[in-house]
């Protein structure tokens, strides 16, 4: 048997490479504020209705619940 037949290797599921996280239009990353903000009002994205429900995974990449800082 090869490594591909290994117990945990066999259980790996593959996904297509995801697109980068979608940021709503009108928001930019502010270096000074250290967060995504409304380009006009400077309101933090995370305090607006535009913020989708945060996923349990980093960067919306399906790697389970946490992407361990990748």
């Amino acid at each position, binding site marked *: 048997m090869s490594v591909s037949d*290994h117990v945990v290797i066999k259980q*790996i*599921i593959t*996904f297509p490479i995801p697109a980068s996280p979608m940021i709503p239009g009108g928001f930019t990353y502010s270096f000074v504020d250290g967060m995504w903000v409304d380009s006009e009002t400077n309101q933090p*994205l995370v305090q607006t209705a535009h913020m989708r429900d*945060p996923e349990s995974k*980093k960067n919306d990449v*399906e790697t389970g619940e946490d992407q361990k800082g990748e």
Partner: protein
Amino acid sequence: MNVAAQPNVLVISNRFDFSTDYVCAQLKLKSVRYLRLNTDQFTELAISYDPNRGVLSVRKDAFQFYLNPNDIDAVFFRAATYLRGDKGLDPHNALSKQHWQSFVIGLMSFGRRWINHPTNVYMAENKMNQLRHAAQSGFKLPETFVGNDPRVLGDLTSATSGRVATKGLDTLFYRTKEEIGFGYTEVQDASEVASSSWAELPFIVQEALEDKIDIRATIVGDQIFAVKIVDKATGTGIDGDWRREKERVSYQPTQLPANVKTHCLALMKSLGLFYGAIDLASIGEDYYFLEINPTGEWGWLMNCTEFPISETIANWLKGDKD
């Protein structure tokens, strides 16, 4: 050139880590002077570290920051402690990433207080290490073996179900140019596991916990924010890895028994962590430790629970509560 006021808090993350945005929004609200450095944006900055004086200069466009180790009181660390399987990069870009990784580790000279310190994250992420610490902290664990010896199956097979749970010793994750691969915890018949190959890499095999309720306990300092993860329709637990069933689960705030809280805090102290996301499984009155993630996400809890996790982190970074 705008020379910004000396920051007192350093944040190390990446620009798409929205959990960090929540904390920075709180820091700004509390008028804390902070600087966020994103590992995916280093090449957009002009950075210079002077080891003689210990001062880090960070410049972007018209903004200039000077970080003096004596003035950085706290660091919020959300970066990887080592690289995992980034096979999609060409060798030169891989070297670039590796060297910026080294730079991030070099930032350990800053900050008197860390959420969490990289060396503690590195050790705590290791599942063998964390399982042992959990057992020593008083937690009940499923019967567990780590390695590649198939003889352990005989000791593990549940008397009631004949099933075992298998999971990677490290995150089962890889990336190529075409795809991402990820492995969840699998619960399967012991006979299936017995017929597979074992030798090539060590892994975790545990007794299957049947009829469990999954619990996520997010720990910030001495505060514990816990939710039960159950089927929306029936209120019952999820068989196997609940992350595969996210569309059908709900997260219900719950209180942990006093002894379980004690174990959680003891484990955090043992691992040297201020923040941690602990996965538990309850069966009746029994609570089992499954794993801890020192960089686990919490943003997904906020909309359904109103837990003040981001505010609590920001308060600690500010120095309001140690």
